[in-house]
């Protein structure tokens, strides 16, 4: 009988501002990966995308389609064949002080040598009276690398991840 499990592989809570976080030597013994992020950027934005890269791959192997709603506007963004997957988002310096964006990234079949579609859901709740400053995004990503994923790097395009940003990497087995 199947006995699915979700195991914490590793986690990081930042003790100070940090430009990037890398999980390397990820075991290939799971079926799927789940990355849970609570983060805030130091750059002067309300919301800021952060980059996801796999295996140190900086070539144009990434695409993403983001559907964003902020209570007043719905918007769709499509970026294809890019080296920079900035689909995931977090709160940044112009957001309400001490608020963090929440993001869950699910990467099924991460050991596949074929293209790897994955998803993230991220929420920015800024605890202020401007409704449009709070947003939720659902993002469809595609990574076309021909190797299984053994490392994940999250990087801010400007500024840093601030102190107390959290990163949790889980492995999921279906039996």
């Amino acid at each position, binding site marked *: 009988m199947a006995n699915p499990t979700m195991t914490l*592989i*590793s986690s*990081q809570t*930042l003790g*100070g*501002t*940090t*430009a*990037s*976080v*890398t*999980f*390397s*030597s*990820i*075991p290939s013994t799971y079926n799927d990966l789940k990355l849970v992020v609570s983060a805030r950027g130091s750059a002067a934005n309300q919301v800021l*995308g952060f*980059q996801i890269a796999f295996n140190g791959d*900086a070539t144009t192997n990434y695409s993403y389609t983001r559907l964003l709603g902020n209570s007043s506007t719905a918007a769709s*963004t499509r*970026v294809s064949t*890019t*080296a*920079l997957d*900035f689909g995931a988002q977090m709160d940044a310096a112009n957001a309400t002080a001490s608020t963090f964006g929440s993001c869950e990234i699910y990467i099924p079949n991460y050991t596949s040598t074929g293209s790897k579609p994955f998803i993230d859901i991220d929420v920015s709740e800024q605890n202020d009276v401007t409704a449009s400053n709070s947003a939720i995004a659902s993002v469809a990503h595609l990574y076309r690398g021909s190797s299984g994923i053994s490392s994940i790097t999250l*990087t*801010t*395009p*400007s500024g*840093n991840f601030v102190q107390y940003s959290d990163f949790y*990497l889980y492995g999921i087995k279906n039996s």
Partner: protein
Amino acid sequence: MADVIEVNCATGEVVTRPMTADELAAQEASAAQAQAEADAKAQATAQAQAALASTNAKLMSLGLTQDDINNLLNAAKA
């Protein structure tokens, strides 16, 4: 210079080190490219909106009302 953190999931080792000059240059290049992509997207959107507005104006000059045009657009989307 900003720090980077590398977590080795096999050994549990965590290395915190300053970003190298090459990594800093790559981050700056990434920021520039991301901005360029965003600018290109905004420009394409603006051009599409301008083209739509131009088409709309031409149709109205032919005597169609805005409701007529909306009906055509809705029928095309259905």
